[in-house]
């Protein structure tokens, strides 16, 4: 399938490069420091194991989202600015196939981050009761979120056609998504805070992690949040398809 060749090209261009690897090594170093401190630092080591697992899962998800946004911003705007998109459009590949290939590469990137995080999750969560279920939720919800934010960012990239502006808007989206974290506990309990929490897919994911890993609650408690996350996924893929179909040089 032609999307596979596009995906391979993207992986070679963005992932199997010194810059790509630097991201992964940096991720690994940060996770190393976090895990080591969690398990050995006087005060941090007394955090509940579930709490440690939860914090690492949040960090990995946030990183996956951020890298997805950056990836997406370059997807079409970057190729236009480098002058390489026209040759691609000259080939008998339809635009949705090109987008599919690029999403595939963004997913591969997330997959690598997830794989890098697994040893740390096992080491930090060892002996804890919600380790495996936490990893399952991270795999699924992290993937959904990676697709959602990458697709949205790619759609923006196709519409705006400027890498710089795409990136700025993508970072703004990232901050908006993380906004609930900046609210105080009291603010989050207000009607505004609750609504913001519920409609924000990133907040839905981290609240789900909290519910599963710390409070040991079952899938029944997560249904509403997971439904919202899936809704955003569908919406962002639709946005990407529409943006790319209309893309002209």
């Amino acid at each position: 399938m032609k999307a596979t060749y596009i995906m391979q090209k993207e992986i070679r261009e963005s992932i199997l490069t010194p810059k790509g690897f630097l991201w992964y090594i940096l991720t690994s170093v940060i996770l190393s420091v976090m895990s080591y401190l969690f398990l050995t630092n006087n005060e941090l080591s007394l955090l509940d194991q579930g709490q440690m697992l939860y914090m690492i899962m949040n960090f990995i998800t946030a990183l996956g989202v951020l890298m997805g946004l950056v990836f997406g911003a370059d997807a079409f705007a970057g190729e236009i600015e480098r002058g390489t998109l026209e040759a691609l459009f000259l080939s008998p590949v339809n635009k949705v196939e090109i987008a599919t290939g690029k999403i595939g590469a963004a997913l591969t990137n997330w997959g690598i981050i997830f794989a890098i995080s697994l040893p740390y999750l096992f080491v930090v969560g060892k002996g804890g009761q919600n380790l495996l279920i936490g990893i399952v939720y991270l795999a699924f919800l992290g993937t959904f979120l990676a697709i959602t934010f990458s697709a949205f960012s790619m759609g923006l990239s196709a519409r705006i056609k400027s890498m710089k502006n795409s990136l700025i808007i993508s970072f703004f989206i990232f901050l908006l998504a993380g906004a609930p974290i900046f609210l105080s506990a009291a603010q989050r309990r207000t009607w505004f805070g609750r609504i913001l929490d519920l409609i924000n897919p990133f907040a839905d994911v981290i609240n789900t992690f909290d519910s599963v890993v710390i409070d040991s609650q079952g899938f029944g408690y997560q249904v509403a949040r997971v439904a919202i996350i899936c809704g955003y996924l569908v919406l962002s893929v639709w946005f990407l398809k529409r943006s790319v179909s209309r893309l002209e040089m």
Partner: protein
Amino acid sequence: MKRSILFLSMIFLATAANYASASAGRITVSINPPSVQANMGDKITYAGTVTNNSDRAIDNIIAYISLANITPGKEAPLDLEDWSANKAIKVDTIPPHGTYEGQWPMRLIDSGSYVAYITVVDKNDNMPVSSPMSRLEIKRLLRLNPNNVLPVAIGEPVALGMVFMLVAFRRRKRVK
């Protein structure tokens, strides 16, 4: 006139003193164990006994635990937020000459020398009542490699670096 004022003042002071000592005598508080030696991360439970020494029931009192750090150079009262979930207990009623047993579980978060004591507040009195202090010595645990974190913390970044170098080397070989 002066003598009357002096006499009335003495009666007032005697009453107040009696009242204070009577209320101090009305409630007594004890804490157990009287001293503890433990390690960081241990969970312990303090038991507090509130005794009503009077002939009347005591209603709606509050009993809470306090900790103070007495490690030389670090003397300070302690914020128990991370240590204990159950700091203040409201007691509905203690019958005449009755007792109330309260439990204060806590997790020992930091090493050092501490004193713990339980205080009871009765809104009908003008002085709180505290138990004697229980000494608490917490030893620090040094954990260098719990859960085998070091092989992962050091090994993974190194492994990724090696993979990168391998990929870069193979590419350089293929490309002129």
